[in-house]
């Protein structure tokens, strides 16, 4: 019906107007400070540059991440700080953070120039028998080897995730899958992927990866 077409046309016109009128905030140009000013205040108890990214995390495990943007473990807060700091704000990753601190890798991870981190959850570490875990935590060299096996140079977007990557530990890790379903090293599933931090893309996984050596 023509009338339907006109309805669609009219609606499309108004929507085009309403969207372009406000579209200026997506680019680098605008003077609409009236609307821009309050946005960062919803979350900003910290100061950091805005990321300007539209990349969104995915996966069933994401629901366990705190939602309050003021919470240091929320996606919004993690996006503003480097990766080790981001992880330390997240209660799901406290065992990993303990291990990173014991290995003395906090600054290295925070000041690396762009990395991808496969971050095992506390549950993943809990699957390792306690005596074995304690042994690894006490042995800085082995611990460093295990942890750096979870880090790949460069920020890998989900589209680039599948494939074989050389880790910072030196050995390779293979990621299989696509879309929102990925396996890392054959055994670990990505439960929450593409979590943005200031210097790293994080993929939270449900099993600890073990290098061969």
């Amino acid at each position, binding site marked *: 019906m023509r*009338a339907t077409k*006109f*309805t669609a*046309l*009219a609606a499309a*016109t*108004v*929507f085009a*107007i*309403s*969207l*372009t*009128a*406000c579209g*200026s905030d997506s680019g*680098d140009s*605008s*003077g*609409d*400070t*009236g*609307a*821009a*000013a*309050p*946005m*960062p*205040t*919803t*979350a900003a*108890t*910290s*100061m*950091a*540059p*805005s990321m300007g990214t*539209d*990349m*969104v995390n995915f996966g069933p495990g994401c629901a366990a991440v705190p*939602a*309050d*943007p003021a919470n240091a473990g*929320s*996606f*919004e807060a993690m996006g503003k*700080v*480097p990766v080790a*700091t981001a992880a330390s704000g997240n209660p799901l990753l406290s065992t990993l953070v303990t291990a990173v601190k014991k290995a*003395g890798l*906090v*600054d*290295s991870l*925070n*000041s*690396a*120039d762009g990395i991808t981190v496969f971050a095992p959850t506390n549950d993943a570490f809990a699957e390792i028998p306690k005596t074995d875990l304690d042994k690894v935590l006490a042995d800085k060299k082995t611990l*460093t080897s295990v942890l750096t096996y979870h*880090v790949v*140079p460069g920020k890998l977007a989900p589209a680039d995730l599948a494939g074989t990557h050389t880790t*910072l530990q030196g050995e390779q890790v293979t990621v299989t899958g696509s879309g929102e379903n990925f396996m890392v090293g054959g055994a670990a599933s990505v439960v929450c992927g593409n979590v943005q931090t200031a210097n790293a893309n994080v993929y939270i996984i449900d099993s600890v990866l073990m290098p061969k050596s």
Partner: protein
Amino acid sequence: MRPGLRGAISGIVAAGSGIAAAELLAAAIRPGAGPLVMVGGAVIDATPTALKEFAVRELGTSDKPVLLAVIGGGVAGLAAITGVAATRRRAAIPVGTGLLGAVGVAAALSRPAATLLDAVPALLAAVLAGLSLWWLLRQRGRAATTVPDDGVDRRLVLRLSLLAAGAGAMQAAGMTVSGQRENAAGRSREAIRLPAAADPARQLPTGVAAEFTTPSGTFYRVDTALNVPRVDPSAWRLRIHGMVGREVELSFADLLQRPLIERDITLNCVSNEVGGPYVGTARWLGVPLAALLREVGVQPGADQIVARSVEGMTIGTPVVTALDGRDTMLALGMNGEPLPLEHGFPVRMLTPGLYGYAGACKWVTELELTTFDQFDAYWVKRGWGSQGTVKTASRIDKPKPFDRMAAGTVTVAGVAWAQRRGIQAVEISVDGGPWAPAELLPTASADTWTQWRFSWQATGGPHSLAVRATDRDGAVQPETRAAPFPDGATGWHTISVTVA
């Protein structure tokens, strides 16, 4: 066409044309006062935290476009209802468009720093939408008798098309106007010729390494402005008021006529992690603040300067840091050029020895003399420290974390900073071993960072390298780890590398 459908379409097109005209008017007279953006801002402010969390969780960073689309949909819905109602009773036109206008006006006036002028676009939108709807439906009675068999009222279609085309044209014009305005700030910046400093910076000492001065293009940027403010310097004013003997208002030209100083100064952000990137050194040109403050006369008891930016940011700076002899300035130039837009064009504050959040307000337009008791600046309200004194810090820049290198002599290099106090020593520890002194390169002043380097005889295996600095007061950088919140990070930057 059924009367209901005709009314709905008419209502939507009428509202669309009114809003398009309002956006054009806003672009011309009052950038940022477009009704949709105003309503969006008001909605964000009024949204309960729980709903904001939901939006952030479910929509991620697309929450803003979704919000604006929802507002657009809401406006369209209300407009359609108004149109349908208006086919039955004309009184629905002023009621419906009046309601839309009232929402827009209320949103505009609820914004921080709102003026009555901000309400004009929304009023225009309501009036135009009402007139358009009335025009669309005016000959309803006669049209009803001439509706051809295919059910389409050609007169209405023609009018709808005319209005839609007009709305489209106004929308395009509005975007052109705002685009030109945005470019105008850039052009006026390019046209500015900064005068030479009456008191120029000393030449950098020989032996300074290449990275001493941070290029403006890579200088860190931390602020809350989603959109970089674009300020027309010819319209810019700086008002100094509050606890002063004599309130003054200065233009950009006024500042250019004052004797300028030029200094190399290191600026850093309190939110920088240990080893983080938010620190840089630039050559700044500006008006010394001390002389200005003496002219206006600071009243006894005033201990805080609250600097306000054009977008409403407030930065609280201790008065003493402007009057104790340091080179606190209203900076106009950075590395030989007018300030880049994202670094505060046309004028920003700069206070050597204070973190940016306490002494370096960008796009500054107001200095209010007050007390710390009376006013908490933006970040202080959010729990950050009020004084903002820079802590001594050091960073390893080479090698990079996780680098792999051959055994033998490896040059470890980096920077250390303790503005106002200066750096006396930098030391390196390998694998937690004894501290060994690094070589300090010449530096410009106590207000700039000090570059250092260290020759490391690297042996095979994994290693950790740590750095610490001592300021010229003899205080050694503390090992204790502190997070950036609330007053700056502490701890020795320690990185892991592998020697083959």
